[in-house]
């Protein structure tokens, strides 16, 4: 083996010795679990419309239902296991957003309800909110001009 003297040589050795994530398996699991979550959403939507709700109300019910289920599964120590298996499959849908708010709320409860739960609740979801809302505003302005 060649002598390692520089950071660049060491970086090469580290890459060689570090196992990679199983990308294909991760993508496959993300695909079918993500698809399943969206299908569940669709079933709730169709059921609501079948019960006589209009489309806007029905889609709101879908969001509320998926958030409630995710929050419940997070608090039961189940969501993290699904997330570990499915990765982006649970992270990308609204389920991931709910989990990212409920999990710090649980974790930081020991620091009190105000500065703990209240202050730290958005530590993970904060960037999504900031950049999501900013993007919506910019898109909204562009849409109103044209």
């Amino acid at each position, binding site marked *: 083996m060649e002598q390692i003297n520089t950071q660049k040589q060491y970086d090469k050795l580290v890459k060689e010795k570090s196992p*990679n994530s199983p990308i294909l398996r991760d993508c496959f699991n993300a695909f079918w679990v993500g698809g399943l979550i969206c299908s569940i959403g669709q079933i709730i939507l169709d059921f609501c419309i079948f019960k006589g709700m209009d489309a806007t109300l029905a889609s709101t019910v879908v969001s509320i239902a998926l958030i409630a289920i995710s929050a419940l599964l997070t608090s039961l120590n189940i969501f*993290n296991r699904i997330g570990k298996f499915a990765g982006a499959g649970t992270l990308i849908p609204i389920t991931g957003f709910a989990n990212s708010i409920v999990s710090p709320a649980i974790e930081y409860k020991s620091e009190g309800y105000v500065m703990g739960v209240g202050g730290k609740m958005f530590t993970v979801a904060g960037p999504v909110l900031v950049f999501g809302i900013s993007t919506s505003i910019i898109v909204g302005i562009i849409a109103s001009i044209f």
Partner: protein
Amino acid sequence: MHKIGKQTICFDNPPSILEAASIVGPKEADGPMASYFDKCLEDEFWGEKSWEKAESKIIKETVNLVVAKSNLATSDIDYVFAGDLLNQCISSDFGLRESNIPYFGVFGACSTFTESMCIGSVFVEANGAKNVICATSSHFCSAEKQFRFPLELGTQRPPTAQWTVTGSGAVILSQTGQGPYITNITPGKIVDMGVKDANNMGAAMAPAALDTLITHFQDTGRKPSYYDAIITGDLGHVGKEILAEMAQSKGYNINSNYNDCGVLMFDKEKQDTHAGGSGCACIATVFSGYFFKQLKDKKMKRILLIATGALMNSTSMQQGESIPGIAHAISIEI
């Protein structure tokens, strides 16, 4: 004591390791080393309200246990050297605040165990103390909370990530006692090879371990074969392989007698711990539980213990800094 070579201290009246104690969490209790520990906890809270309180209780009870096992009174202990991973070492501070023993808070990240033993042994040899305690702790949940994400967040860990050991290990170093003895210490330098991936700590710390290892051999004139076992703290599977290969390239073959506590602690396949264990408690519990008993029973005669630490915090990681590593070696012989 006298200094030999570049950075090694050789003891003329080597301090004896009088007693050792270890307490571990439930995941460690499911691992291959479980039968060697003094106490295995059934849950991570141990009746406390927060992870931090639980970790404090673990180090407190481990220190109480090591004193009880040694048949000494608490008043016989002159100083305690302890540290952990939580900001400002609160687990040790809070855990030992009622101990009534003069206290040094030590921080060397996961190298804290041998760092405290280095300092403690110098105190004992220099006649500054008759008996000292060296202890460290870590807790998976409190470490995840401080360094990574909330436990309930549904994320995936990369294969190079390591699992922080929940537990604590403590030893008593003494002027009296029948050994094993600390004969040499080689405190390490900070070594930074530019690794920035907080999920690959083994790779970040391996160059520091290599530096200390080679310096130890050069300073003492010993060869790897002098030791029955060369043990690193928490390089894990990735770091262990890197260290063994780099040592070989420098002319030191450690393949036959080298192992890592992060590798020994968990069953990688069954326990889903990826690259192995980490944390201050990793080497502290494995040494106190397993290697100390091997030395006591004379199944091993000479070991080189090298605890490795990653000197970073969450702010430095977010600011894009690389991770400097450190490693302190102590040779223990009977």
